[in-house]
């Protein structure tokens, strides 16, 4: 009996020992690197506050590129309770990030602020650290629901990384601009005001910036995500394409050298030609059953048959006629695509070399979401 009890106590001991909370030091340290951001909004469901992550001793911070920043009266509350003005230096919509800086009265733009903040993340250093992986425990810091003011520390949530993968986001009818990998976590960070706060691992390393309130269009659920510290975006400048990472954006932005690009208008053509005609598209999600195959077309050459169901293109699921056309818009003539079609109870894989649309043939009309203003 006694021995059993001792053994039990032994097992129990580490859990009951005091001062064992490993998150305490990390949260205390990280909280100092967070600012509360107050700006425009507050009507029509738009929140007028967000969270900022400090990235320099001179008061530079990052937050989401939201409408909160559309004001000349941007205010931040620092960790120590100081209420200061701030300015947006530059934003990058495709990273959904804005670089801002605390403004000190009497200092000109570009001049050192003299703030000499001790606690901030060095984004160059943080971006070089290894990625977190699914299953890693994380901490999310944010002013969710505007609970903290002045010197009150922001709210800390703990959770788990659920995935590091592409985001399929939808805000209203708009598609989300950032297309890279994100951390999806199971801490519920998708409330108002959380965007821009730091997501860290258990050791306090900066993994990314908490994103805004959007729905995952694959699952139709509100998604809790963070844009990783080393996120990159590929920008087109005329004929050139250029890849910019978040740290580069920060570095150039701090030097006043980052130029927002003119966004290329998304190609709105129908893409490459397969020669497939589908059954009438009468439902929200009409399954893409082939109704007719044009003579001499790539589809005929590839051996597709009437009544085949187009199910995947290049491994991506095609769940309706609409999603087929949306996928094909991204293709062009002479590209080769791999179609998987359901024929009977089997999946057949077929490669098609896409052609040019024959002259005079009616092209599919795909309703595009309205242009984002």
């Amino acid at each position, binding site marked *: 009996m006694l021995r059993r009890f001792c053994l039990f106590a032994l097992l129990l001991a580490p859990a009951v020992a005091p001062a064992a909370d490993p998150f305490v030091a990390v949260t205390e340290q990280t909280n100092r690197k967070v600012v509360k951001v107050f700006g425009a909004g507050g009507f029509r469901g738009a929140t007028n506050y967000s969270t900022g992550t400090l990235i320099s001793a001179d008061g530079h911070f990052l937050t989401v590129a939201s409408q909160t920043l559309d004001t000349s009266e941007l205010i931040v509350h620092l960790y120590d309770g100081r209420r200061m003005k701030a300015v947006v230096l530059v934003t990058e919509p495709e990273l959904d990030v804005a670089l801002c800086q605390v403004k000190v009265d009497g200092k000109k733009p570009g001049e050192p602020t003299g703030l000499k903040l001790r606690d901030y993340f060095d984004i160059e250093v943080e971006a070089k650290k290894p990625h977190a992986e699914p299953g890693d425990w994380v901490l999310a810091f944010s002013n969710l629901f505007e609970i903290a003011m002045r010197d009150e520390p922001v709210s800390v949530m703990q959770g788990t990384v659920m995935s590091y993968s592409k985001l399929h986001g939808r805000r209203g009818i708009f598609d989300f601009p950032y297309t890279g990998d994100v951390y999806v976590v199971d801490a519920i960070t998708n409330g108002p005001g959380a965007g821009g706060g730091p997501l860290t691992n258990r050791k306090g390393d900066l993994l990314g910036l908490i994103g805004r309130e959007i729905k995952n269009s694959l699952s139709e659920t509100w998604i809790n995500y963070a844009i990783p510290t080393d996120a990159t975006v590929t920008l087109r400048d005329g004929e050139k394409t250029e890849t910019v990472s978040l740290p580069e954006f920060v570095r150039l932005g701090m030097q006043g050298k980052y130029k927002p690009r003119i966004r290329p208008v998304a190609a709105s053509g129908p893409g490459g030609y397969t020669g497939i005609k589908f059954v009438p598209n009468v439902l929200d999600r009409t399954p893409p059953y082939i109704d007719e195959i044009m003579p001499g077309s790539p589809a005929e050459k590839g051996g597709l048959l009437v009544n085949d169901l187009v*199910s995947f293109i290049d491994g991506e699921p095609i769940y309706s006629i609409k999603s087929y056309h949306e996928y094909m818009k991204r293709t062009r003539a002479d590209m080769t695509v791999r179609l998987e079609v359901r024929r009977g109870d089997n*999946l057949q894989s077929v490669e098609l070399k896409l052609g040019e649309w024959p002259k005079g043939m009616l092209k599919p009309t795909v309703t595009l979401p309205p242009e984002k203003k």
Partner: protein
Amino acid sequence: MPRTLIFAAVALGLVAVPMARADDVNDATEKAMKQAAKSVAPFVVKIETSGGRETVGGGGGGGPGGPPAIRKGVGPTSGLVVDKDGYIITSTFNFANKPSDIFVTVPGKDRKVAKVVATDTSRMLTLLKADYTDLPVPPAFPKQNITVGQWSLAMGRSLDPEVTVVPGYSRGVISAVGRIWGKAVQTDAKVSPVNYGGPLAAIDGRVIGVLVPASPQGEGETAGVEWYDSGIGFAIPFEDVLKVVPRLKGGKDVGRGMLGFNPKEPGEEYNVPVTIGSIASDSAALKIGLKVGDVIVRIDGKPVPHYSALRHTLGPKYEGDAIDLVVTRDGKEMKFDKVVLGSANTAFAQPFFGILPMRDDPELGVEIRYVYPNSPAQVAGLKVGDRVMKIAPVGVPQLVAITGGRAQLAQVVRGLPVGMDLQVLVKRKKEKPDDKDKEETVKLKVGALNEELPEKLPMPSTAGKALEKPKATPAPGGPPKPPAGRNKPADEEKADEPKKDGDEKEKDDTPTGLLTDQVNKTNAREYWMYVPDNYDRNKSYGVIVWLHAAGKGGRDAKDMKKIWEDYCDSANFILIGPKSKKNEWTSTEAEEVVTTINAALKPYTIDRNRIVVHGMGIGGQMALYLSYHARDLVRGAAVSGAALPGPAKDNLPNQPLAFFLIAGDKDPLLKEIQDTVEKVKAKKFPAIYRQLKDFGKEYIDQKTLDELCVWLDSLDRI
């Protein structure tokens, strides 16, 4: 003992000193979880679909009465291997949008076409089959060892399309066991469409359960989805899943096991023992000979003190499962061993005599106003003008006299199983006034209420003596004592006799005509009503509750009066139009609306058999909501352009409810309305459906209006 404690304390102290760094504790847990997820990963299947609807649930377009329609994601969902031959279990939610094609990918194998084998409609699991062989099946965490507080990982394949990776998981603990009437375990890990159908894994790599949306109140594939990511998530214990798989493999859906009765006091969950109020035809209860009035005492040796306990005990059972049942009848215990439970589909058909009674008639018995064609009454040779005097099942020597008018007859008939043979004593209609009374006993087999609508009903419908006390039986030796609870004259139809302080106030209490800008005193809800100018308190009035369309609150009073006043005047109906507090109706307004209606009707003589909610569009949605949530008040719902948001509720014999459903064939909700008709008919509610050609969202056409009038006038059928 104290010595033990001291030693324990010492032991504690000793180990506390060289304790490892606190951080390592989390390191170990995090690592163990990753390992657990990794070992479950090979069994987690990716499911993809093609086609299907954009939105599911919500009856289309939201409105009161349920969660709004939700968009169904197009992304992959998750399943779990349960048999080496390619059987995969998943959440029925994943196919709520009725996709045309399903594809599955088992990690390390090719993508395959999958077919739905069968669905467990009790636990909302669907079994799929794809052409795989030699699949590994995950080990189950023993159900009896599932403990509140233990770690649990909710895993799913929605976020990362790569099927080779370990599925992402949300971390939590087991919050409760035996939830959802004993069917599910609860976790605070985030459960959502991202992982429905995936496993809830234990930290040792065994499978605790299969993640599903669930709600103790709701039924159907989307019930409980509103709680996604809330910290309240559910999983069906994997042991239970593996147990039902062999049955599902048979290809037939498996549903809840039911005894097939309704309790005498349906609203009482905890306070009273379960007394049988009525028994469904074709039910397990009927087959073993349970009787109305029997009290359920024990099931499988476990005491069943109240209805909630009954639901917990029977909740996990399937149709075809056997239980040992103990009831008390007249104070004596009766044992029924190995009772095979029936299916939930043995809905209660409303027992039917086949007549319309004359209203407001204090004479003995019930005068027949109308005999339904091909009804039991017609087959038995009953005719208009005959009076039903006494009834009893065949073989019972003493017939029960109908002393409480049509209310009593209706109540007696409702308690009878469909198919029962009755002996009925009728007093035949006199051809000439000075003919002698002619009584005879006929045989009548109780039928099931169908949705046949008479073409035209004879008038008058009332004897016009609503305020007279029913006459006592002039039998020698005093009136016969009816069996308790069956036919107390106290239940007769004048229960709603107008409450008045004195005759001189009567006029003021019962204003007539179109009464606009009325306000309920207790909840300040506005309403209007139309009371026929020829209102006669000696006649009982039916009530049409008009639930206005969006934004029309109060402004449609005159229009509605114009349409309905002639009918109200001749068929004795009062029209009442409560106003919503906002533009549209919300379900939270239901209570106030009911209070308002009850208060407004108080001064009048009301026929409780003919209270109908009526509306179109969002008003129709509200009408459907009220029909299910104010069942002690509402006897019918006449609804145009609205659909039920969730599954249909059960038909309750003591609270009959009929539907008159109308859809324009151009209405975008057409499909949902047709589904609604199917749903209520499946529960054996009498339902009439009219689809109007070239109609979208307009009010109904004349022909349908005429039919609706007949329907309204026939709701007190017996």
